Structure formats: structure tokens, C-alpha cells
């Protein structure tokens, strides 16, 4: 193969098969300026026109260095010795070949979920989901990696969500849950998706609370969310942890108004009762019985004496009977009542 020397501005760096292309950093630009290009890029020549197949960052960096050309090796249009990859045994269409060369040239890079999705967005429309996983899967994932299945589900989502995956706000595993939402409901939830860094578990719980609350209320999740006030929460300047906790608690209140009312009543009474002491008070399992567990940890006689005095005071407090009988109060609403 003879090297070609191309002007980097003559190369198309925004071609879709360069799906992991990123701007060059200063270190690469400095290295190219000081030591020149040590590794050639790869091009495919079709109709006498070179198409960059690998080396987009080098090409972009060389654009910034006056008078430099891009050294590239031209790959043959079809490699007669390569095993047939196309399902029909024929040559691969050019876009697929370009994509696979690009992947191969990146072999060894750690593939993040966002990178795998970017590859999927390129290959799936060309080869179908199964074709993409068959052709590109081995280069993306280890054989025992479950991400192929998760990736397939993510690709059912609008591409606009990929940025939230790349920024770490939404995990790849949430794709199936998100894909189950109707487009309007997904749009309505989008501000909350970008507001916190969701784990798969927390997002799954949040969406379950929302969709079930909506079903019980006989309305869409978008409508439930709109009347919940939760869309205002991200603008209140809460810490990330507090915001996540607040959103989950708010969605849980929508789904379980009676349970959360009971919990809130119990919490208020137990705070009133245990104020100034280290005693922790827990309700019975599921509020099933009129009893509570009082728990205190002590390290010495003095602490135990203090705890005993605290417990004695609690026994005489007017809040105690109310706390023990908290589940006797009515908390019911008609199923489907809007909260």
C-alpha cells in the first residue's frame, strides 16, 4: 500500500461512520506539531475519492497546524481474502464496511455505553438490530456482556435521549422502562431525566410510581406529572441527593397517598415523642398492629440510665397512645382519587 498525502481540509470529518469522532485535545495537536504524524490514517478510495475510514482526530488536529498534510493508507475497495460478512456472502455495502473498519481501528478502546449506542445508531438502520449485533457486537462487547440486550432496548428510544446517557444522567439499563412510555409521557418526564443522575433502580422505581399512579387516576403519566408540582423541584436549588430523594418521595406520594400519609403521621408523632433522646421508634411491619419498636443503643451505665428516663417520659407522653393507634385513623381515599 502506498501512502497518500491529503490536505486535511479535503477530508470529510463529519461522515456518519466516524460515530465516535471527537475534537482533538491539545496533547495530540502538540505531538503532531513536534513529532509529525507517526501513524497513518486509513482511507477507502471510491471513484477516485478518498473517504476517511479512521484517523479523524489526527485529521482534525492537522487542520490546525499550518502546512501539514494527512498521511493515509488507502485500503483496497474489497479485500478478496477477508471472510464474507454480509448475510448473502457478497461484499458488504460501503457504509457497513466503513463502519466496521472504523470499529476495528478502535479495537482495544474501552467502549462506554454511550459509544455502543452511537455505534448502534449508525449500524442498526443499515443492517437491522440483529445484523448490527452480529456484525459489530463482537467488537463492542465481551462474549458474556449483557449490554447487547440492553443496547437493543435503548435503540428503541428517540436519539435525543442519547445525550443523557453520554452525560451519565440515565443508565443504559433504563432503556426498556423509558421505551415503554408513550412519546408524550416521555417528553413530559424529560426535564426530570436530565435533572439528576438516575440509577437504574431509582429510575425504575420512579417510573413505576408515576405510571401506576396515572393508571389509578385514569389519566396519562404526563397529566399526573403536570399536576404533581414535581416539575418545579429541579429549579429549587436542592443538592443532587436531596433532589433525587425529593423526586422519588414525591412520586411515591402520588402512587401511595394513604401509605405515605400514615408514614408521615407516624414520623411526626415519633419525633414529638423522642425529641431530645436517642431513642428510635419504628412502626409495626406494614402498620399491621398497634405496636411500635423503641430502639436505643447505649455504651455505658449513664447512657442506659438516660435512655430509661427518656423511655419513662415517653410512656407518660400524650403522643404515645396516638402513635400506637396511628393506623386506626382513616387515611382512605377512593382508588383513583386525584391527589
Amino acid at each position: 500500500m502506498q501512502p497518500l498525502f491529503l490536505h486535511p481540509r479535503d477530508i470529510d470529518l463529519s461522515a456518519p461512520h466516524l460515530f465516535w469522532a471527537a475534537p482533538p485535545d491539545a496533547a495530540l495537536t502538540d505531538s503532531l506539531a513536534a513529532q509529525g504524524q507517526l501513524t497513518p490514517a486509513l482511507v477507502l478510495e471510491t471513484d477516485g475519492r478518498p473517504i476517511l475510514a479512521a484517523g479523524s482526530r489526527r485529521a482534525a488536529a492537522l487542520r490546525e497546524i499550518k502546512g501539514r498534510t494527512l498521511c493515509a493508507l488507502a485500503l483496497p475497495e474489497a479485500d478478496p481474502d477477508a471472510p464474507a460478512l454480509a448475510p448473502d456472502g457478497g461484499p458488504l455495502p460501503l457504509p457497513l464496511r466503513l463502519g466496521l473498519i472504523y470499529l476495528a481501528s478502535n479495537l482495544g478502546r474501552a467502549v462506554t455505553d454511550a459509544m455502543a449506542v452511537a455505534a448502534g445508531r449508525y449500524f442498526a438502520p443499515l443492517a437491522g438490530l440483529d445484523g448490527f449485533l452480529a456484525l459489530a457486537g463482537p467488537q463492542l462487547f465481551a462474549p458474556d456482556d449483557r449490554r447487547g440486550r440492553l443496547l437493543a432496548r435503548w435503540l428503541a428510544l428517540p436519539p435525543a435521549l442519547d445525550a443523557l446517557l453520554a452525560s451519565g444522567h440515565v443508565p443504559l439499563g433504563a432503556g426498556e422502562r423509558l421505551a415503554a412510555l408513550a412519546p408524550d409521557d416521555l417528553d413530559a418526564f424529560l426535564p426530570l431525566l436530565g435533572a439528576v443522575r438516575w440509577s437504574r433502580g431509582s429510575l425504575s422505581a420512579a417510573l413505576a410510581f408515576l405510571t401506576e399512579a396515572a393508571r389509578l387516576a385514569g389519566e396519562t403519566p404526563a397529566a399526573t406529572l403536570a399536576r404533581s408540582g414535581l416539575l418545579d423541584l429541579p429549579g429549587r436549588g436542592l443538592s443532587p441527593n436531596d433532589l433525587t430523594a425529593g423526586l422519588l418521595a414525591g412520586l411515591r406520594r402520588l402512587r401511595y397517598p394513604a401509605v405515605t400519609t400514615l408514614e408521615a403521621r407516624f414520623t411526626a408523632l415519633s419525633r414529638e415523642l423522642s425529641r431530645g433522646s436517642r431513642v428510635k421508634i419504628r412502626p409495626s411491619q406494614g402498620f399491621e398492629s398497634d405496636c411500635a419498636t423503641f430502639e436505643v443503643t447505649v455504651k455505658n451505665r449513664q447512657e442506659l440510665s438516660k435512655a430509661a428516663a427518656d423511655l419513662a417520659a415517653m410512656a407518660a407522653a400524650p403522643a404515645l397512645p396516638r402513635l400506637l393507634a396511628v393506623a386506626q385513623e382513616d387515611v382512605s381515599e377512593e382508588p383513583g382519587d386525584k391527589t
Partner: protein
Amino acid sequence: MSAPLWDITALAVDAAVAETPMAARARTALPEAAVTVLAPGDALPQAPNGGRALHVKAHPGRFLRPCPATRHYRCCGYQIIHIGENCPMDCSYCILRAYFRDRTLTAFANTEAMFAELGRVFGRDPSRLFRVGTGQFADALALEPITGHTRELLGFLAGHPNVVLELKSKTADLTWMEADPDPKTVLPSWSLNAPVIVAAQERDTASLEARLSAARACVQAGFRVCLHFDPICWFEGWEREYAATVDMIFNYLAPDDIAYISLGSFRCLPELPGRLIAEGRELPRYMLGEFTIGPDGKTRLLRPLRVRQLRFMARRLAGHGFSRGLYCCMESDEVWRAALGQAPRELGGLAAHLLACAHNPGGTRPCS
């Protein structure tokens, strides 16, 4: 060719019971079914045409056993005669979904062994009263036209007047009456529910009207009956729906015709909703209630909501003059007091109370 009864297209009979009267009755009742006699170790055959199999076999263990209750809640002391397993009807809430993972129905044909065991227990002290039933791991009467199990059992129990047999069913089958039992020793009983639950969640069951018509036929023949509102489901409009069913009861029956009525709010093993989804069904809305996990590990509606359900039912039934023999199935003393105004202890214990209701129409105990 008519559709096979309960969609049973395969009859598999263990060789050990192939010559029993029950096996013969099953062959006669299922003339179109593919019959296989199974040697020990043989696998069950696949039922043809997407149907289900009835497996007639011997039960190797005890036949009489207590209800699988939990110590955390008040049990009614029901004792089960184990006649078979699984149910051909398809109710979304059914606990049998968790117990049995396929559609195969099982009937135990070694009735001689069953009667020997029951005879030892029931005959030991003829003054000791028993309240037993067959509808725990199976519908008591669904397979009766095929197996004749209950008729055989009633023939045996004719010699044990200290035993009252409850026959709990969602069918309207009354063929067991051919055994001509003493009406004082049999309590035919029906599970009832809100009309919308019966229509949407109880596939292949008899209609409410058919169940209550069957109950009325039993009363006309001298029997008293039992009714079970279990599970009571929480959904939009539940009060209106359950009120309709309660009111309907008294179009068919008088309060004195009913020995007892149970109330049980919907509860399930936590995996049940997932099982339904895995079957490709949409989760019923009543399964989206405000549930918590109780101390027995089961999912239950939040206690104040259950109390509201049970109190509503109790008041509606009381409005029709029924209060004696009303009880909560698997509830705590707290719920009993809040819903019914007393705990089982004040009735002398629930099992004893229901035994009295079952054996004594007038009631010697102060039954609320």
C-alpha cells in the same frame, strides 16, 4: 363434537389406581380424552390440541390437614381433606397460581386410604365435632362431574355425623346431591365477588346468579349454605359493586339460610403480579392498591383501607339482617375490632365459633 369439559383432552391414570371406580368414572366422563396409563416414573403426556391433562393418581401423604394459615393472623380452624390439586377455572387473584405452575389437574383416587385415615380421626371420639372442607388446593366441585369424588366422600361421611363438610366452589354443580347426604352435615358454599370482578377476573366460573340460584336450590333441599367474599378487591367504585352483590344475596337467600360468611381482603404472595405479567396479562387495577407486606410475608392492602372494606361489608350485611357467623379470614385482632366490633376471643375463639355455627343452626353461643 362438543368442547371437552374444562378443556381436558388428556386423561393420565397412574397404574396403581387404574382399576379404581374414580378412574372408571373419569374415563366415562371424558370419552374424547386421550387416555394414558402411567407406570411409575413415566412422564405426564402432553395434552392434545392445547388442552389440559387430568392426572388421576394416588396421594401418598396425609389427607386431612389444617389450613396453611399463619400464626400472625386469626385462622378459622378450617381443616382440609386433600382430594386433588389445581383448578380448571382461571381467577387472576388465585393463590393456586403460586402453588401450581402448570395447568395439570390432579385428582386423588386412592379413596380407600383416605377413608381409612379419616375414619381413624373422625371415629376416635364421635362426640368431637369437625368442620372440614375440600376446597383449598382445588375447587371442591369443579371436577365432580368427572371424578365423583364428593359423592364418594359423602357416602363415607354418612357414618360420621359429627363431621360437617363444606363444599367451596365457584361452579353451580349440584351433582353431589345425588349422594343424598343428611342436610345437617353438608355446607355447600360459594365464593362471591363484585360483579365487575366476576366478569373480568374470574374466567370460566359460574355467574353470580348461577351460584346464588344453586345456593337457593340447596336451601330448598334443606341445606344451609356458606358464602365467602374473598378476595374483596379495592378499585374505583368498589363500594357500589360489592353492595350490589350483597343485595343480590338476599334476593335468593334469607339470613337464616346462611351458616357463615367470610370476609377477606385481597392478599397475595408478592410474586403473583409478576407471574401474571409473565403470562402476558395486563395487571388488574385492583392489584395496584396501596399494599404493604404483612408479617406473614404476604402483600396486603394497607390496614385502614382493609378496615374500611370489611366494615362496609359488615354493615351492608347487617342491614339485611345477617351478622351471626360473619367472620374475617386471616385478620388480626386489631382489624376484627375495628371492622366487626369484637375480636375472636370474645366469640370464644374463631374456630369454636364457626364450629358452633356449622353444627348448630340456632346457635348456642352469643354469635354477635
